[in-house]
Structures are given as C-alpha cells and as structure tokens.
C-alpha cells in the first residue's frame, strides 16, 4: 500500500494546460459547434461508405440514386436545422 495521500481528481481539461492548448480551448458555444462538426464528419464517413456499397453492389438498380438523393436531402435538412433552425421542407414539422 502506498503511504502517499490520495490525490484529488483533476478535470480532463487540465490535459490541455499540460499540452499548452489552453489558449485555443473554445468557449462553450464553440464547443457545441465543434461537437456538431464531429457528428457531421462521422455522418460523412458513414454516408460515403454506404454510397460506395450502393454504387458497387446495387447492380445499377434504379432505386440506388433516388435512395442516395433522399438520404442526402433529409440529412442536409437536419444538419441545417441543427445549425440554424431552418430544415427546408421539414421546418413545419419540427419545433
């Protein structure tokens, strides 16, 4: 058993101080924006992978392009809603 007293936990953000990132740590509002961009980046990767599968394996089915177009339209509407509150056609259905 170590005889040293327990150290209190420090905030994970203290890591930024150690890494000298404290000056560039975004404010709360900016944190939300960055979190949104992270989600959108994940969405972009997922969508690219799915589109790759549609193009490669759907055997040139007529449904491939409408499916991708609808997905992109709805997704951009939801992204726009998250960022600005304007969801194009869906605005009237959302608060």
């Amino acid at each position, binding site marked *: 058993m170590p005889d040293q007293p327990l150290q209190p936990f420090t905030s994970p953000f203290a890591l930024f101080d150690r890494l000298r990132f404290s000056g560039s740590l975004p404010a709360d*509002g900016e944190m*939300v924006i960055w979190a*949104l961009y992270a*989600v959108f980046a994940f*969405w972009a990767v*997922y*969508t690219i*992978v*799915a589109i790759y*599968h*549609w193009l*490669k*394996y*759907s*055997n040139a*089915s007529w*449904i491939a392009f409408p*499916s991708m177009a609808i*997905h992109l339209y*709805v*997704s951009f509407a*939801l*992204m726009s*809603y*998250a*960022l600005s*509150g304007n*969801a194009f056609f869906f605005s009237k259905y*959302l*608060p």
Partner: protein
Amino acid sequence: MKEFELEPGEHVVREARKHWLLFVVELLPFAILAILPFALPRLLVLAPPMAPYAAYFDYHTVLGRAGLGVWLLVVWTGAWGAFTRYFLNAWVLTNQRIATIKQRRFFYREVSSLLLPRVQDVTTNVHGILSSLLNIGNIKVQSAGAEIEFTMRGIPLPEQMRDLILKYVSAAPKSTGV
C-alpha cells in the same frame, strides 16, 4: 452482375429480397427513437415526480435544437443504413444457378452459388397467421452429395419461387461427372 460473372447463355430469372413488411418491422426501432424526443416531455408531465425534467426538452433553445437535429440525423442515417443492408441482401436465380448475396455489414459481404443441376430438394415453409395471410415464407434448397444448404428467409411468394427453381432445375443439363 458485379458479384459474379454470368456464363455464356446464362441470364437472371429473378432477384428476390426479404418481404418489405419484414423490413418495415426492422425500421420500427428507428421510428421509436425518432419519436422519443417529442414523446418523452409529454410522458414526463404525466408522472408528477418526473415533471420538472420535461423542461430540459426545450427545442427552442440553440442547444436543444442542435441536440434534436443531431439525434434525428443519427436515427435517420441508421435507418438508411438498414435500408442499404436490406437492399443489398438478395437471392438471385439464374437459369444455371442460385446465388445468395449476404451483406452482413459494410465491407462484409458473402456471395455463394449453387449450380441448379446439383439441387436435390427444395422445401418451402410458411409459419404463422401473418405469414400465411401475406404469403411470406422460407425456402430451403439442398444440394446432392455435399452438405450445402441454401435458405432464403422471409421471401414473398415462396411457392412461386420454389416452382420457378424446380422449373429451371428440370431444364438444366445434368452433370455427368466426367
């Protein structure tokens, strides 16, 4: 076909997928998740001890709106991913073979073929009231000799598919093994 090269004289007779109703059932969890942020505040109000928490679901604030937008985006993308997997899973009957294409997840794809002259038995089964009413069932195709078995689950009009397979099995030239 990109999954496999068709032989000279080979053509696709039918491409079958799971019945659309089974896909709709698969979409149900996504529908529930999409409704959840709208239903939850109303449900919380009904339970007095939890009622104060309903105030957290205010979508007129910037944070609330962003959260709702991201939630719906994730649910929508998940549902579209489910549709992609549904569509890319297929059974293809040609005049020479049966091929099953299984897209288990992205970058995980299995394509296997069974030559029609090797088909020994084709069994269909339709279980349950709903399956009987909507004519949804399974087809099991067994090959001669080796223990190869193809099962198509939840396809529409299984009897019609079985008859079609048997029609092409009888028309396919038998291998002499030489």
